[in-house]
């Protein structure tokens, strides 16, 4: 298998998805499009944290911190440290 072909193929399809709407008039209905950010980020987060394990607990901690403070770096640090400690504690 030629790794170079895989890499070039991945580049082509990824750039296509990124550039098409920016370069061509690729319109989606406006009333719906503003719901893209909450929808996409929920879709990315939920599958990762809904198995009811340490990640669920760490995600809840991050959620509470994020409601109080919008700092992205803080959320990230709290998430990684909580998950690390929860896994060490072996509660689940």
């Amino acid at each position: 298998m030629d790794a170079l072909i895989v890499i070039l193929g991945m580049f082509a399809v990824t750039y296509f998805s990124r550039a098409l709407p920016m370069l061509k008039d690729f319109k989606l209905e406006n009333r719906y499009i503003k719901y893209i950010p909450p929808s996409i980020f929920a879709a990315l987060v939920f599958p990762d944290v809904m198995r009811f394990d340490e990640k669920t607990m760490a995600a809840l901690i991050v959620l509470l911190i994020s409601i109080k403070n919008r700092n992205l770096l803080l959320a990230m640090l709290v998430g990684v440290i909580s998950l690390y400690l929860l896994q060490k504690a072996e509660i689940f």
Partner: protein
Amino acid sequence: MRSFKDSLPIVVSYFSISTAFGMIAKDYLGFQAILMSALVFAGAAQFIALQMIANKNPSALIVLTTFLVNSRHLLMSSYLARFYRGISRKIRAIVSFGITDETFAVASKRFLENEADYKYNLQLNFFSYLAWVSGTALGIFFGTILPDDVSRVLPFGLTALFISILVSSVRQKSDLIAALTAGVFAVFLPSGWNIVVASLIGCFAGGVAERWMR
């Protein structure tokens, strides 16, 4: 520079994640791992591709899976396009290359606050890209900096980042309905298509909810 300050959380997480990517990819791709990061610049897809290369999947299937996983950028790009009316085609072509979940999240937030322009977006993408590619190179060269139990929890930094962004993107009840709908569908739909399909269903739910509540 605000773009630099805003890029820091992304730079930190990209650098650590791509270092992890480089450490694993080294065995399958060698220095071509750097080329993959430089051309594809998409975390989830690159990790999936690595797994598929390890399992000797056909090249075409790896590319198709990449398209499925990354087709969500169609949604992000079409959302960002509204802020690029009147901007040259060349700049739109360049800025498109740097659209990722994280750069999109930060840029769309700043555009909405009227605190971003195309230069801001280009810089944000560039810093993130630099972190992604240099982290990959570092991962290949210094494969064993982090203890295993630390590098295993690092990817959760991205989930935490998404949670924080999710919280700030929910401004009204219809946003919450869109998010919950998309989230639940993403859990139950088969992975590969789930992010895209669940997001589209979430957008629809948000739009419908908005109409009902009016």
